[in-house]
């Protein structure tokens, strides 16, 4: 779907030009209603999650609703005073302050365009300067249409999904937005989970993945899940079991091609020496990582070491074309295909390490 030129939410409030954000210049500070800057969705997103209404509407219904809203606002039914805060001037300032760095409009899955833009430089610094990432085979990623990236996972924190996301946004000619599927253990982590969600992460579950693919999005799946992230240093670059083959079923059902991806460097960025599990469960974590720097240096120890990263994309695999959508019910086939793709990613990883 093309990006909405007339973005009703931002436009109707006299939103400033999108090019002003996010430079820290908020021309709307004195505006009563318009808070939060522009809300421009990246291409490929649609704000309107609904298909066209069943009836052809000439706007009469809309006018009718507006009339009723106005009617409800007459002095006969005054607005409950508690809903307006006291000191309107202060309130207005507070709203403008509270809305800085966030958009008043997010897409269906919670990506916030302003927050994404705000974190862009951090990702770019990590990608280009800190990890000096090399990318190969980007031509295998389609410029449009649905596809599933299947990548290996490592490094205690999901730096690899952030780098994969940024690689395609920065270096792919179509600058596509990847929606990485984030495992529950990370998605429900305090602060990190909402942050991942604001910059494009989606909770990993079949419903979400199907919905994204139906909208012809590009999703990234890390089938190793937490097992992959919590790989110890001695097991580095040895891929774990690929979940239960959910991604194969997904590809068969939706007809999306699978693009194998190998990521090198995440293992060295936060080498995991050990996992502490005995008290982690009680605070809601899958494990507490022990790295050369964490927990010895406190939260700063979670910053990655400057390892050299390489990301390689393999040629797309069209499972649905080969086996048909009905094959999704064949558990044995699904398991075999998952294992086959795991072998392929493992071979790509080994190839990159040479």
């Amino acid at each position, binding site marked *: 779907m093309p990006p909405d030129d007339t973005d009703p*939410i931002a436009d*109707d409030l006299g939103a400033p030009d999108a090019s002003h954000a996010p430079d820290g210049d908020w021309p709307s500070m004195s505006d009563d209603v318009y808070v939060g800057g522009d809300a421009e969705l990246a291409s490929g997103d649609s704000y309107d999650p609904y298909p066209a209404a069943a009836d052809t509407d000439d706007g009469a219904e809309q006018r009718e609703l*507006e009339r009723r809203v106005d009617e409800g606002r007459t002095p006969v039914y005054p607005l409950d005073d508690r809903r307006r805060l006291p000191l309107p001037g202060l309130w207005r300032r507070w709203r403008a302050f509270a809305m800085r760095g*966030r958009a008043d409009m997010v897409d269906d899955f919670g990506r916030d365009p302003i927050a994404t833009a705000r974190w862009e430089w951090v990702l770019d610094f990590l990608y280009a300067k800190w990890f000096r990432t090399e990318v190969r085979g980007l031509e295998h990623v389609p410029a449009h249409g649905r596809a599933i990236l299947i990548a290996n996972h490592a490094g205690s924190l999901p730096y690899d999904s952030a780098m994969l996301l940024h690689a395609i946004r920065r270096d792919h000619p179509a600058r596509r937005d990847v929606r990485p599927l984030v495992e*529950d253990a990370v998605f429900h982590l305090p602060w990190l989970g909402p942050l991942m969600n604001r910059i494009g992460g989606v909770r990993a579950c079949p419903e979400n993945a199907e919905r994204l693919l139906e909208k012809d999005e590009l999703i990234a799946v890390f089938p190793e899940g937490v097992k992959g992230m919590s790989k110890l240093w001695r097991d580095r670059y040895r891929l774990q079991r690929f979940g239960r083959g959910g991604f194969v079923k997904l590809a068969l059902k939706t007809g999306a091609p699978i693009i194998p991806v190998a990521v090198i460097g995440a293992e060295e960025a936060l080498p995991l020496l050990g996992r502490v599990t005995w008290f982690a469960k009680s605070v809601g974590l899958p494990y507490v990582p022990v790295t050369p720097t964490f927990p010895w240096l406190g939260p700063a120890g979670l910053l990655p070491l400057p390892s050299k990263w390489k990301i390689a994309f393999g040629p797309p695999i069209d499972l649905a074309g080969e086996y048909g959508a009905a094959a999704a019910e064949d558990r044995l086939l699904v398991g075999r295909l998952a294992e086959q793709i795991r072998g392929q990613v493992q071979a790509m990883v080994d190839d990159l390490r040479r």
Partner: protein
Amino acid sequence: MATVSVGNARPRRAQGRVVAITGACTYLGTELIKRLEEDRRYAKVLVLDVKAPSILAAGATKARFFPIDLTQPTIDGEIAALLQREQVDTVVHGAFLSHPTHATEWAHEFEDVGTMHVMNACAAAGPARVVMVSTTMAYGAHPENPNFLDERAELRGHQDSRFINDKVRAEKQAARFAREHPHVQVATLRFAPILGPTINNLHTRFFSRVTAPVMAGHDPLMQFVHEQDAAWALKRAVDSDAVGPFNIVGKGVLPYTTVLALMGRVPVPLPFLLARSIAKALWATQIVSTAPSLLDYLLYVCVADGTRATRDLGFTARFSIKRTILDFVGASPEDGATDVASSFA
């Protein structure tokens, strides 16, 4: 009680439909009466409630008030007799609490048992159509919820919230009624939290405070539906022939903290465990009437998918979530915040 066979469901008569509404004093009930008054296809509106809504005094011509208290033990027979005598073809069951109460036993009698009475009466009188009001909160806020819950999702409610679980039980009764009486059209409307300039419910009270608790480090997506959209959806559901559950949702989602920022509320971050003990203490001392279990809705996403209502009911929300929020705090449209869905097209 004599159960009339469902084949006797009365066809809609040419001279206009007759609608019976429970919970007429709620926002949705009053708005529905208003709209039925204006619609010439409807001949009569039976208002069943403990007290007459103010709209009756304001010159309603089709509406007639019948004092009915759903917590009375034999009320189902009375309702059935009334439905039969007045030849009612559509029953709208909207008698539900919009806010948790400390009188949990009474709430249970009113919502769960009250729904049983209404369904019993419908089974006896055999109206052609039953429309029930429910909420998407009945899905429950769970960590494993997908971003969009469709109508096939299980109604899991909440382990220790009677406010939610009574609604889940009411829905289950409606579903059983629909199974046992396949000739009666049963539609259940699961409304997302309703906000707007005039409605008063759990969410408007929660968001009317200057401060609002935020579970530290958690920021789930939220969804609201504008009160006018909700009323329009209910009217459409009464008009239409569609059956089954429908999510009635607004357009778009926003993170909870952005909702607070748009409203100008001051977020108070609290660790979840601390917040829960505070909420429990406040509930136990009856200082607030917001149940502690509702804090889960600030932790996990509970957003529903309205595609089915668009397809089968022809309902699409006209107000975006931002417009809904601004209407709620009274910041529009005099400030120029028009947000017209037709400009999408």
